[in-house]
């Protein structure tokens, strides 16, 4: 086959995929604001996405905070700047590592589960059954997941921020010989509202991306078990990549020129 034709086909497929995601996003968001509202489903999804992700995100944040304190202490020691450990840990966790690592962990856990569940519903005609029972699948399946993930991730990341800082504090005070009061004072002195808010805004964006990719790939799933497996993989991979891309743009939005 002509190499130019292959490139052209790949490019056209890419544009088609973008168009499909855009239309899917439009319908998903539109149905968040249009009645009927499925509050029971929203609460159930918030429990699944937020509450049940706490252990994995909490552990990630704890060990990230611990490692961060250790690494900064070792690195900063090369130019006698060990006192910067507290401030760098808190900035690193709240601005970047809390939302990004939390988002990636939730993407692995939640986007895959959404894609598998919706994908199975697609291949077993359950989504068609919803339509025949006068229930819009976007309203019933997509809108509650999009809203729940967008609302849950900031709360989850706020908890992760606290646990991550606590991890750094534990290592700094018990292993590196920092004074507990001084460490906390340095942490709070350097922390600004914008650091936390930017992280929470990132978390909301990442939550939306995770649910969107989970639902989209689930809806696109075709065939049988293999199709659902592919949808699950695609959901996690695309959500992870989009989180990293979105992270750059949200960071630039908040901190460019400061």
């Amino acid at each position, binding site marked *: 086959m002509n190499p130019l034709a292959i490139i052209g086909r790949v490019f056209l497929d890419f544009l088609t995929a973008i168009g499909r995601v855009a239309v899917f996003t439009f319908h998903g968001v539109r149905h968040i604001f249009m009645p009927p509202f499925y509050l029971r489903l929203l609460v159930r999804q918030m429990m699944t996405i937020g509450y049940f992700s706490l252990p994995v995100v909490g552990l990630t944040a704890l060990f990230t905070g611990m490692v961060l304190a250790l690494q900064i202490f070792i690195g900063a020691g090369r130019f006698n700047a060990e006192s910067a450990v507290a401030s760098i840990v808190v900035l690193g966790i709240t601005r970047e590592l809390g939302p990004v690592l939390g988002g990636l962990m939730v993407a692995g856990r939640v986007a895959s589960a959404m894609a598998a569940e919706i994908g199975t*519903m697609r291949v077993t*005609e*359950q989504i*068609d059954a919803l*339509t*025949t*029972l*006068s*229930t819009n699948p976007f309203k019933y399946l997509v809108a509650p997941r999009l809203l729940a993930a967008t609302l849950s991730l900031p709360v989850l990341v706020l908890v992760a921020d606290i646990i991550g800082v606590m991890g750094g504090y534990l290592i700094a005070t018990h292993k590196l010989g920092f004074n507990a009061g001084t460490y906390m004072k340095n942490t709070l002195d350097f922390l600004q509202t914008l650091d936390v808010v930017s992280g929470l805004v990132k978390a909301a964006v990442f939550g939306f991306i995770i649910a969107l990719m989970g639902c989209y790939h689930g809806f696109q799933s075709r065939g049988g078990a293999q199709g659902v497996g592919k949808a699950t993989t695609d959901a996690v991979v695309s959500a992870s990549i989009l989180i990293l891309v979105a992270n750059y743009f949200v960071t630039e939005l908040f901190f460019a020129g400061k």
Partner: protein
Amino acid sequence: MSDTPNKIVLKDIHKRFGRKVVLDGLNLEVPRGKSLVVIGGSGTGKSVMLKCVLGLIRPDSGQILIDGQDSMKFDNGEREEALRKFGMLFQGSALFDSLKVWENVAFGLIQGRNMPRGEAKEIALEKLGQVGLGPEVAELSPAELSGGMQKRVALARAIAAEPEIIFFDEPTTGLDPIMADVINDLIVSCVRKLGATTLSITHDMASARKIADYIAMIYKGKIIWHGPASQVDTSGNDYVDQFIHGRAEGPIKMEVLKP
């Protein structure tokens, strides 16, 4: 508009997926209050035809009339309103595995018609009783049921909202002959009780003979024979004869690679 003799009319429906032509000028009329069964082999366009009527797939061209109204011109609100007339039994039952059996049966009442859960549960239990399932089954999840029981639950769900039109997609596929006959009997009794118009697709001739007032045969995306169920054995159509007798030899050629 509701006094038209035909409840559903399909006129010159065309549908293709890529290069594959699935429906090729299909014409079909489903008389009001009657049971029409469309027979045909796998891949002849039966399921696509049903999904076109339900609006799950949009035909490339043609006209679909429901109670005389062109369903392809419906806006979203009109489509949702029209769908309230329909019940559907899916081939694989398509029960929601995250919900209990009674919630499956009551789903259309609770979500589609905003009925209170308590009232909907009472109706669900009544419909489960109509298909021979007791209240102890209502609290189980679909995964805990056998294939035959799942079909019965799906039938209860299809009739729960007392629809004017019911579609049956391969209602007996995957069932043993006795359970298939039980399902056929339930379909006949439930439909008679409701007075509904039904459109079924199947390749199970025992099922077709039992539930049909009229039979139509689809082949390569077209209806090639249409008549009363009592005349299917004397249709004089070679394709129909080959199909109902299950013969490998005849005008219908299976695309099988010979060794």
